[in-house]
């Protein structure tokens, strides 16, 4: 029974894919070739490509013009779908993808676990309060994602234009007018109307060095040893996100059979005696799998504070149990809730690629379904200096102490020292 349960949990763990639009750099030069990567999986690793027929809309919006992306602009590499385009005139650009709905069936247990792991806590609470925890679900889901990037230096207002997706984040501030330490206000729209009281997660991925890009990482979002049978990104494959980790973090593998996650705070472990596979999106490319024997323990060392650990040695260590009381989520970072106007405010605490995500999941009367979800993410980059495309340092900003304090302090100090020594003489 336990094995079945674990298999089930593993299935759920590895089956929900969040979609993101990512760029190597969110600062582009005008009229240069660029690529946007469409990830479907975690922020770190795409698990499968998205076929063009699934896309209801793929648009680029800049300088007031919305440009439909042609099918010929798409390519695929590994499990990442790539949008190749020519960056247009200088301005703040938006790219968006909206996908057609699909459905997935889950039994009650799997559904509850999925709600918990994806941070869809309101529905979980609702099920608990309404004695629906035993109800299975047939969920209709669709994903609608956006990214905002800056071409050249000129800021334009395209970032505030809604693309008209079923659900989408529309910033109230241009992310490229903001810097680390600022807050961004984003309005969440559902069918064009502000969506109040919705849980939103904001997190970021810090660059190791703000001034370089790891190409290997950028190409497939993943830099693991190819020989290994499975591949773990630092943020794990189950759709959870952790705050504050580096692109190239301490994640290390000693050999094929043993690697470790240990982040010290929360803990859960997976018994990898089962083969995990991805089937949420029914893509032929969903081939990510875990094959491990009992003896092949693996652990990950992560820098993140909120994470989990995979031990994979025995079943007993697996702490994903439907009966566990402490909620275990794969969403971390800032947990926000939209206000009455559908607005969330995220504090941009560090340099990096920031992403907001939410899954709006409600019960539906639609025939053949019990629930309907709309997933959305928004990505953009935040740097620590004024002028969004610069990587600069000003001690005044970093230290938060105005220059004149130093000026006056230094003058006073030299003056006092001078008088002191002059008197002593």
């Amino acid at each position: 029974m336990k094995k079945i349960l674990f298999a089930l949990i593993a299935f759920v763990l590895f089956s929900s894919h969040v979609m993101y639009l990512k760029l190597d750099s969110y600062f582009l030069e005008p009229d240069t070739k660029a690529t946007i990567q469409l990830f479907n999986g975690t922020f770190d690793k795409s698990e499968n490509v998205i076929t063009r027929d699934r896309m209801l809309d793929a648009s680029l919006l800049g300088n007031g013009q919305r440009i439909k992306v042609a099918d010929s602009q798409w390519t695929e590499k590994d499990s990442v779908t790539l949008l190749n385009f020519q960056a247009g005139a200088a301005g703040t650009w938006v790219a968006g993808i909206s996908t057609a709905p699909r459905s997935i069936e889950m039994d009650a247990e799997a559904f509850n676990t999925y709600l918990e792991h994806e941070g869809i806590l309101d529905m979980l609470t609702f099920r608990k309060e309404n004695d629906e925890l035993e109800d299975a679900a047939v969920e209709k889901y669709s994903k609608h994602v956006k990214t905002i990037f800056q071409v050249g230096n000129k800021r334009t207002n395209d970032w505030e234009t809604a693309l008209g997706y079923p659900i989408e984040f529309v910033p109230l501030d241009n992310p490229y007018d903001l810097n680390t330490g600022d807050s961004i206000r984003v309005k969440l729209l559902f069918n064009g109307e502000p969506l109040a009281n919705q849980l939103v997660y904001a997190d970021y991925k810090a660059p190791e060095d703000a001034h370089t890009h790891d190409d290997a990482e950028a190409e497939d979002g993943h830099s693991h040893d190819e020989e290994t049978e499975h591949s773990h990104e630092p943020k794990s494959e189950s759709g959870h996100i952790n705050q504050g980790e580096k692109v190239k973090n301490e994640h290390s593998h000693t050999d094929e059979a043993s690697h470790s996650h240990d982040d010290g705070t929360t803990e859960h472990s997976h018994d990898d005696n089962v083969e995990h596979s991805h089937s949420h999106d029914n893509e032929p490319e969903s081939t990510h799998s875990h094959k491990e024997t009992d003896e092949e323990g693996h652990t990950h060392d992560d820098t993140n504070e909120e994470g989990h650990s995979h031990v994979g040695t025995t079943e007993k260590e697996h702490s994903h149990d439907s009966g566990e009381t402490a909620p275990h989520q794969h969403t971390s970072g800032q947990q926000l809730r939209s206000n009455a106007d559908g607005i969330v405010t995220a504090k941009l605490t560090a340099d990096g690629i920031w992403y907001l995500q939410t899954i709006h999941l409600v019960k539906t009367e639609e025939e053949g379904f019990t629930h309907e979800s709309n997933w959305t993410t928004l990505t953009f980059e935040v740097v620590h200096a004024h002028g969004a495309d610069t990587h600069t340092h000003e001690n005044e900003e970093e230290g938060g102490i105005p220059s004149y304090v130093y000026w006056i302090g230094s003058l006073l100090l030299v003056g006092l020292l001078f008088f002191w020594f002059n008197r002593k003489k």
Partner: protein
Amino acid sequence: MTNSAKKILISSSFILFPFALLAHGVSSGDQEILNNGGLLSYIYVGAKHMVTGYDHLLFLAGVIFYLKSFKDIVRFITVFTIGHSITLIGATYLGIQANEHLVDAVIALSVLYKGFENLGGFEKYLKVKSPNLLPMVFIFGLIHGFGLSTRLQSFEVGSSQFLAKIVSFNIGVELGQILALIPIVFVITKWQTKNSYNAFYKAANFYLVIAGIGLFIYQMYGYFYGH
């Protein structure tokens, strides 16, 4: 204290020390200048960085305090220039980077070093003769150049005319250095004839020690707690 001494004190304080406050002066606008201008923009930004890059100037001021003749000043500044040019051009060209806080922390120590040496710290407290300044200035020049390189690498320089841009930035640094040195040398040499020079000398070098320690702590704090 005479009125002229007071005047010199005030003006020199403005010239010498408050550069500390402008920090590294690489403002957000600089990237735009670099993006939109040609090689001249690199000269400008290099010069600007040097003129407002307090730690380099504090160190140079410390060196000048130590020297007696104009000939010596030229000699030492030349050695410092060679030193920082080697690492500025070399490290930037090769893409060698280090954490800027750590580099700046070492540069802060060079300021501390110079103040300490000028105050006779080696003889007084360590009971040793202070190391020959010329090679020390060369070594510190290398370190300062690495700091300048780290700063230059924080810009998106682009790949076209890469070496020319680095050299332009370096030329700008030298021009900025000359510009900044003129008032520093002027004030120090002028004051040397005054009775109050000894007090000024001590005050300024004590300030270098304090500033060096302060900057070091500031950079280390930035290293551990900065983003």
